[in-house]
């Protein structure tokens, strides 16, 4: 549904994104992780057809992105920007109605109701957007991204700054959208959220550092360590070549008369993996 191959984007002398290849399939959520300034927003803008790459190719819903096709490509994508970006003096429905018209939706009023129903805000359609809470504004912004029924959704930090309940509501909404067969790319700083949502995770720091399913990422970068907890609460960590050496370590400790309470192979969290990848780069 979304394919980026060897994508590079430079602004004057500064390279924001270098040689990035990734894809998002229909019915899949890919989360994009990376530190500030890693090129996540630039990648989102490239995949949304907002800007063109300096090198490489992008295909959005079957449309090869060029200057001539960019407008058509944008019509296939729903983009949630980092800030909701609503027209705060206007009502919720006028916000969405304008976007529906700009997207060339056949029945704008019906599309507004449908999108608002989707985010459970139909009863707030006549409220002034500026008077809504941050969480509700974000839901209106999601409704706006859905107004033209795009097959591809690009969500830039969709839960940033939201309270836990609102964030959970938005996450549930995103999972619901995946089940409708949409291809969804989510940029986030929240590693827990990334893991919770993602079918695959992409770690970006100008270049793509890793791109795979979470379990494989953790496994591939798993540390070769075992932590042995001794009686009395003492913990000892041992570097190991592979798991077959663990019984030897245990036997050696037992031979020394040490009483072992627990043996734990090193489990890498996504945070460990992320920090390894990004820290190594930095």
């Amino acid at each position, binding site marked *: 549904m979304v394919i980026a191959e060897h994508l590079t984007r430079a*602004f004057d002398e500064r390279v924001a994104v270098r040689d990035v290849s990734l894809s998002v399939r229909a019915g899949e959520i890919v989360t994009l992780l990376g530190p500030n300034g890693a090129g996540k927003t630039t990648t989102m*803008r490239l995949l*949304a057809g*907002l*800007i063109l790459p300096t090198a490489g190719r992008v295909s959005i819903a079957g449309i090869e992105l060029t200057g001539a*096709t*960019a*407008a*058509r*490509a*944008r*019509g296939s*994508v729903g*983009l949630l*920007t980092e*800030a*909701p*970006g*609503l*027209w*705060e*003096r*206007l009502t919720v429905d*006028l916000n969405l109605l*304008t*976007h529906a*018209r*700009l*997207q*060339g939706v056949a029945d704008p009023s019906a599309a507004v109701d449908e999108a608002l129903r989707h985010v459970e805000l139909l009863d707030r359609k006549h409220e002034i957007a500026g008077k809504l809470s941050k969480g509700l504004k974000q839901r209106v*912004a999601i409704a*706006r991204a859905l107004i033209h029924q795009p097959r591809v959704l690009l969500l830039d930090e969709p839960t940033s700054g939201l309270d836990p309940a609102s964030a959970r509501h938005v996450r549930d909404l995103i999972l619901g959208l995946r089940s409708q067969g949409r291809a969804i790319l989510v940029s986030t700083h929240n590693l827990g959220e990334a893991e919770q949502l993602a079918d695959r995770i992409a770690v970006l720091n100008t270049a793509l550092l890793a791109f795979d399913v979470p379990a494989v990422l953790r496994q591939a970068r798993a540390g070769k360590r075992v932590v042995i907890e001794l009686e009395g609460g003492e913990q000892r960590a041992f570097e190991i070549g592979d798991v077959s050496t663990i019984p030897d370590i245990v036997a050696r400790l037992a031979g020394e008369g040490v009483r072992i309470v627990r043996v734990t192979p090193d489990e890498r969290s996504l945070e460990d993996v992320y920090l390894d990848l990004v820290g190594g780069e930095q």
Partner: protein
Amino acid sequence: MTGPGQGFSWHRVVSLARKDARELMRNPGAVVPAVLMVFASLFPLFLVIFIVPMMVGRTLEQSGEFAAEAANAAARIPELAGLSGNALVETFLFHQFSLLLLLVPIVSATALATHAVIGEKQSKSLEPLLATPLSTIELLAAKTLTPFLFALTLSWIAVVLEVAGVIAIGEPGLWRSIVTPRLLLLFGVLGPLVELASLQVSVIVSSRTNDPRSAQQLTALLILPVTIIFVAQLMGLMIVGTQAILLGALSCLVLNLVLLAVGVRVFQRETILTRWR
């Protein structure tokens, strides 16, 4: 209706312009200065023609200075031909002060356009807008259309009020000497062109600032040429007749074409996304 990405679409331009109009109507900070300008531009003429004579108890004809100037100008201003007495002085002053009404489209367009562009920047709504099939030329057209129509309407309201006021309170039959081709050229041709130039400057300046007031201060420079011409005419140094108006309109047309080229450069999608802060 033109579908996404199939060239220039008036449907998209009008959709966005309608949104801008609704936002403007809910934004007193933008609309009130524009409306106040109508009354501010009308006041000097009515002050000189009606209020002052009423207060001092003398007609314009009896106040020597204006009467002498009007008599001197009669040979050079075709609209004054055949007039005498109060009607001559009233028509002369209308001729002089009508130029002030050109400030209405300039100031109104500036006030409205700066809010239309900077408002989008402040609410961070430009990126979602650019994520639609809307082209940058359509965006530029939409951002100009609403302030243009709004300011043009205000300036025509000002003209109608001024003409109606002078006809109602002035000498009988005065309309024949004030509703002239000069007036129609001034507000039917030069006015809209001056307004369009003012709008384009406002939009260009707005792209470089985040504060409507800063943009308005810079674009306020546009009122200088009109003020200078007004003062020069009042001092008898020049007459703004039909030929001068046509020349001014031609100059404004050229200026508008130059500003359009600059505006199109400023309104590049990538420039907006990466440099408009």
